Structures are given as structure tokens and as C-alpha cells.
């Protein structure tokens, strides 16, 4: 579902409006937390005020667990979320320079704007400084470029870098943050000589801390599958379904469908583009395996309640497409058993009337059915008709608006 704007659920033109609203929330919270004061911010490095650590880590963990939770439930497609790329040496060098900037200046860019707005002159000077710093980078960009664009490792995740499962990393992160909150509170109290009475009057954080750790532990023991959709099917269930054969639709049913030209099935050609353009069943749409999951087909799979039948030359291509679709949680999908080869084999067997008479009742009706179908096909009832297919043209993938991130 989300992110809403890259998925095209909300008009991208509202992007700036949301930026403004989110910015208001961002600025309001930073000011409320006391981040307009450089002395308060610098306190984190000298032990007299750890408010930066508390706000920063609480925010980071809230957003991190929130994203994990939403991703797990399929509420947000994490593959569309911007992940800061890792340029190893540039990231570290930048951090070290910013560390110096923090100690000397007492602000970071976001907080300096907050400070300047409420009248802190040192914050205004800090902003001027940071504009000069950016200019220096721009002026000497060509000299800096090897470091800036070098050692690119991709948009990698910390848990992969550490070789940990994602949920374990989250649990560790939460534990470390809670320990840091407890320890820094003790340090802060000692440095500021806070009395026991004042400490006793503080709210207790045991309950929220306990709940947070419990939630993280539960996460670790949940099935580890990374879900992309709410109703994703587990592999075990899928195997059982395939073994029972309940996903198969006979060629006879498909022939019947084509012959009577009723609209109760959606035929999906899972073969290659070349094969499809050469020949396909009447009314069939073309969705090869690579396209099964593209967003444009979601309305078909989600909202069209007719049975959708994949077919290929044999079973392989159709089966692959079926498995992909089924695993993604799409419902009401099937495979035409045996594919086009079986269908043609049946259609173009010669039945002479005398021989039919010697069959038993069921075989006889089958043979008659196929004979009629053959006549129908040969007389052009199923001839490739350009106006007949594709009923639904392949959607464009361009509706996903790429996310450009960075700060």
C-alpha cells in the first residue's frame, strides 16, 4: 500500500504540501524537546544533559520498529523506501567532520534552524557557517570527488553488513538504547548532583521499556518471511495446494470457454512475447512470469473475481507464473493442465463417427465435444483476431515515482 506517493495512491503534486506539514511537525518537536539551545545539545558530550541521546534514539527506534512492523504486515513496500547509499570512506569522513562541527558549533543543521527561528544568534551564525561549508565543498568538488563517489557498496543494510537477521539487529538496537537511557540518566544525575527525592519523583519507564523489549522479542520469533503483501501464502500451504492438484483446470474447460465465448474465465498467456504475438488463444492476455508482480496488474488480480487461468506450451511456464502469483497471495488463479500442446493434441485427433459409436457414453460425449471444437477452431471461430485480444493491455510500470533521498 504505502509509501503512498511513490505508489501513485496520492497525487505527487501534494508531495510539497506533505513536506511542509511534516516539516512543521519536525520543527515543533525539535523545539519542544529543547533543541533550540546549543548548550543543551552540547550537554550530550559532557554528561550534564543527555536530552539529545534520548530524543534521537527514541525517534530512531520508533521509526525503525514502525517500518519493520508496517513492512511485516504488508502496509508498506520497503523496496520503495529510500535507503541511504553507502559510500564507505565518504560516510565516515563526513561523520568525523560533522563530529568536529558539532563540538565547535553546538548545533547540527536541523537544530540550527530551530534555534535561529527562536532568536539564537549563535544558531544564525552557525547557519552562515554551514552555507560557507557547502560552498567550499562545491568549489573544490572535483578534488573531493574521488572520496565522495568512491568505495560505493550499494544501498546496503547494517544487518547484512553485520551478518545478523534483521529482527535480531532491531532487538539488539532496542536493548542497547534502553541500557544507554538508564546509564546516561545515572551519569547525568551524578554530574548535576541531583538528590534522591528528585530522582524518585520522575516517571517510571519500566512498563514502556518492558513492552518494547517484549515486542522486539516476539518479532524475533515470528516467521521470518519478509512479506510484501498482507495475504502472502506460506510455502508449505502452497506445496499442499499444488500436490492436491486443485490448481489445475482441464483443457476441455478452456475449450468450452472459448467455444461458447462466455466471459467467465480470464486466459493468461505465460509464454514469451514472441510466442504470444505469433499465436495465442482467443481473448488471452499476455503476462509472462517477470510481469506477474508488476503493479499495473494488481487491479486484475485483486479486483477481477473471474478465475484466471495461466497457460503455456506445456505446464512449465504457466506453473512458474502461477507459483509467483499464488505466493504473492493472489486468489482464484489456475493452470491449464498440459498447456497448448495437450489442447492441440486433443483437438486435432481424427475421430471417425464409426469409432465414436464403439466408445462408452462418457468417452463418446468427450469425443463429440472435441470434434465439435475442432470444427469450430478450423472454421475460424478461434482465429487470431487482432480486435479480440488483448482485452487488457499491459500496464506501464512508470507509475512508480522514484524516491530521491538525501539530506
Amino acid at each position, binding site marked *: 500500500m504505502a*509509501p*503512498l506517493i511513490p505508489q501513485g495512491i496520492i497525487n505527487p503534486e501534494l508531495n510539497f504540501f*506533505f513536506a511542509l506539514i*511534516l*516539516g*512543521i*511537525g*519536525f*520543527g*515543533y*518537536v*525539535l*523545539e519542544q524537546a529543547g533543541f*533550540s539551545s546549543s548548550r543543551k545539545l*552540547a550537554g550530550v*558530550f559532557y554528561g550534564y544533559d543527555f536530552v539529545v541521546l534520548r*530524543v534521537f534514539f*527514541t*525517534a*530512531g*527506534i520508533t521509526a525503525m520498529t514502525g517500518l519493520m512492523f508496517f513492512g511485516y504486515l504488508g502496509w*508498506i513496500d520497503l523496496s520503495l*523506501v529510500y535507503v541511504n*547509499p553507502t559510500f564507505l570512506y565518504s560516510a565516515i*569522513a563526513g*561523520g*568525523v*567532520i*560533522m*563530529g*568536529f*562541527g558539532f563540538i*565547535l*558549533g*553546538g*548545533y*547540527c543543521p*536541523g537544530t540550527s534552524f530551530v534555534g535561529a*527561528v527562536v532568536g*539564537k544568534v549563535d*544558531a544564525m551564525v*552557525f*547557519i552562515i*557557517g554551514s552555507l*560557507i*561549508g*557547502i560552498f567550499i*565543498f*562545491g568549489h573544490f568538488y572535483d578534488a*573531493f570527488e574521488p572520496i*565522495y563517489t568512491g568505495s560505493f557498496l550499494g544501498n*546496503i*543494510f547494517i*544487518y*547484512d553488513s553485520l551478518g545478523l537477521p534483521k529482527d535480531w539487529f532491531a532487538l539488539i538496537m532496542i536493548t542497547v538504547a534502553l541500557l544507554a537511557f538508564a546509564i546516561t540518566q545515572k551519569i547525568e544525575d551524578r554530574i548535576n548532583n541531583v538528590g534522591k527525592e528528585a530522582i524518585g519523583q520522575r516517571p517510571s*519507564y519500566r512498563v*514502556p521499556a518492558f513492552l518494547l523489549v517484549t515486542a522486539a522479542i516476539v518479532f524475533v520469533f515470528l516467521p521470518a518471511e519478509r512479506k510484501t503483501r498482507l495475504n502472502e501464502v506460506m510455502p508449505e500451504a502452497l506445496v499442499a495446494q499444488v500436490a492436491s492438484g486443485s490448481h489445475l483446470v482441464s483443457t476441455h474447460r478452456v475449450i468450452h470457454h472459448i467455444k461458447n465465448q462466455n466471459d467467465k474465465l480470464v486466459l493468461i498467456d505465460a509464454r514469451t512475447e514472441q510466442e504470444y504475438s505469433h499465436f495465442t488463444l482467443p481473448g488471452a492476455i499476455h503476462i509472462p512470469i517477470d510481469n506477474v508482480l508488476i503493479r499495473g496488474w494488481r487491479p486484475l488480480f485483486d479486483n477481477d473475481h473471474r478465475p484466471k487461468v495461466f497457460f503455456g506450451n506445456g505446464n512449465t511456464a504457466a506453473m512458474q507464473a502461477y507459483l509467483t502469483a499464488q505466493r504473492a497471495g493472489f486468489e482464484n488463479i489456475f493452470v491449464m493442465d498440459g498447456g497448448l500442446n495437450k489442447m492441440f493434441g486433443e483437438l486435432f485427433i481424427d475421430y471417425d463417427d464409426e469409432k465414436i459409436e464403439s466408445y462408452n457414453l462418457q468417452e463418446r460425449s468427450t469425443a463429440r465435444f472435441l470434434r465439435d471444437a475442432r470444427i469450430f477452431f478450423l472454421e475460424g471461430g478461434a482465429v487470431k483476431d487482432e480486435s479480440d485480444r488483448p482485452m487488457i493491455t499491459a500496464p506501464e510500470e512508470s507509475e512508480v515515482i522514484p*524516491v530521491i*533521498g538525501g*539530506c
Partner: protein
Amino acid sequence: MNPYLAGFLLGLVLLSAFFLTGRGLGASGAAKNVVITAVANAAPEYAEQSTFFGEFFTGSHPMMSWLVFLLMGVIIGAFYSGAMANRLGFKIERGPKISAGTRLGFALAGGLLFGLGAQFGRGCTSGAALSGMAVMSTGGILTMMAIFGTGYIIAYFFRKLWI
């Protein structure tokens, strides 16, 4: 405001940003766009020959960017909060042992370094460290550790500025 509550709310703002737009928060990016626009307007010939400032002439106008609107929001939100809490007023915050002039000099130097560092880090405390931590980006978390690690290592040598 209770710092944990503030952190939780900030986390919700960040989460909303991801949910709505697929990206986190940031502050230094807007400053970069301001610098690029200013340079391109003041010295177009210089800007055109530069890889960095030449960006002005390609694509959309740098001021019409998501981060610039975000920063405008920050300014509004912070002003509202400060006004409500009666915290408005000109002031130079400094440690007890230094003069206002010294403080401003170091603020300028600190800002300069932060602006420079935020380019290498591809984001500052909000765009690289906080948003990077939320999406568990290796680069973002390395930058975060480098910022705070360096801060703690050198804090002792600059203690006269603050305590």
C-alpha cells in the same frame, strides 16, 4: 516536553514521512539547494563550469524541492512552538568561560565543518544519521557513529567552550 515523548513523536513524524513519501527527514539538503541557487544567480558563468553548482542548470529548480519545503515547515513549526512557550528572543548561548565573540567564532567554524561534512556524509544528523538508522542503512549508521564517536573523542579538548 518529556524527551522520550518528544522522541516518540519525532519518530512518528519520521515514520509518516516514510509512509507518505518513501523518504526520511533532512535539513542540510535544503541548505545545499540554497547555496546552489545563490551561486548560480550571483555568478552564473562560474556556476556553469562547476560540476557541483552546474546542477542548477539541469533538471528542476533546486528551490522547488521536497527538502526546501520541509525546511520551511521546520521554520514554521519551531517558531510556533517557541512562541507558544515564550522562548522567543535574541540570545547568544555560550559556556560560562567564553565571551560572546568567541562563541560566535566557534559557531561559524562549527557550521562550516558541519556543512562540509554533511556533503561527504550525504546528509546530516537528520538525513543521514536519524533517517539512515530508521531504514537500517549501513552508511547512515556509520555516519551516525562517526559523528557521535568523534564528538566524544574530542569533547575533552574543547571542554572550555561548554563547561
